[in-house]
């Protein structure tokens, strides 16, 4: 897949860096809030979806397009997209590592730089680095985990989904 380094580095901005202050609720008017909250599921599958959304919330198509662009610029909106059921079009796993703290940033950077990794978080636990690896099949994902083990000299826990009771369906946003 073709991707630019620029978009990857944007994805990798860690929390807490200066300039990464979350957008505040104050930046969102009622139309913005409805755009973020009301279309997490059942996005219109019609030739002009933004016009249909505009009719629902009482603004024009161009306003909807401009607002979504702005919300993306504010990093409140990740994207309008599809959440694919795990292991239906490929393979994914949740992986965890217990990284000695002095090495954590370097190991996290190495893991994040792997294109097969999407989420990568530090968590409060002896297993302190948690990331999701995806690939076209299970063998490809396990190859990625093996590469990370080789590159770091650390063991990776491979915790693939066995059964899903609830997959990300979005949830009602509460505005303070």
């Amino acid at each position: 897949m073709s991707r630019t380094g620029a978009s990857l580095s944007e994805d990798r901005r860690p929390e807490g860096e200066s300039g990464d202050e979350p957008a505040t609720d104050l930046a969102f008017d009622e139309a913005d809030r409805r755009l973020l909250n009301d279309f997490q599921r059942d996005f219109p599958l019609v030739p002009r979806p933004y016009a249909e959304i505009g009719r629902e919330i009482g603004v024009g198509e161009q306003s909807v397009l401009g607002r979504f662009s702005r919300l993306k610029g504010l990093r409140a909106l990740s994207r309008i997209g599809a959440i694919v059921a795990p292991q239906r079009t490929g393979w994914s796993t949740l992986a965890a590592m217990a990284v000695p703290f002095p090495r954590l940033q370097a190991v996290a950077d190495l893991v994040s730089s792997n294109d097969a990794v999407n989420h990568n978080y530090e968590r409060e636990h002896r297993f302190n680095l948690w990331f999701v690896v995806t690939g076209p099949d299970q063998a490809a994902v396990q190859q990625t985990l093996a590469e990370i083990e080789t590159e770091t000299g650390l063991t990776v826990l491979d915790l693939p989904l066995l059964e899903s009771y609830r997959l990300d369906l979005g949830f009602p946003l509460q505005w303070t």
Partner: protein
Amino acid sequence: MDVSLEDRQLLGALEDGLAFEARPYAGLAARLGLSEMDVIGRLKRLIADGVVRRFGVIVRHHELGYRANAMVVWDLPEDSVPAVGRTLATLPYITLCYRRPRRPPDWPYNLFCMIHGRDRAAVEALVEDATRQAGLTGRPREILFSKRRFKQRGARYGAPQPASLGPASVGS
């Protein structure tokens, strides 16, 4: 059910998100060599078949003020996991709930949930509520709050791409 090559290419082309243009499905269709109505029809069928679990706005919770998120894990007898998982899944603040394998001796936990909240105290209160509601009081459990977020983006499955879907077509 196997997902067709065309559908995998369509999902791959959507990984960066739907374009902000008046007719975004027509733009996708042009990149994939399909018709606009074919793209719309394929997406409808992928949703109906459960391959796509939701199609829509994907927000960044941290940026919307949900500063705390915790992965809550339980060590439960295997045969009780499905019923407990289904109970937890009914709670509105549980966004993900999965059974995963134990990895003894390092990792004894086999049920995983994700909870987002405005702050740590809010998430802790939700974890206690979930524990009560699912009858899990006293069960071995850990709460893994997130600290730094090193990377967050949508999954990329490496779907085979049609020749036309190269860097040159980005922004078309």
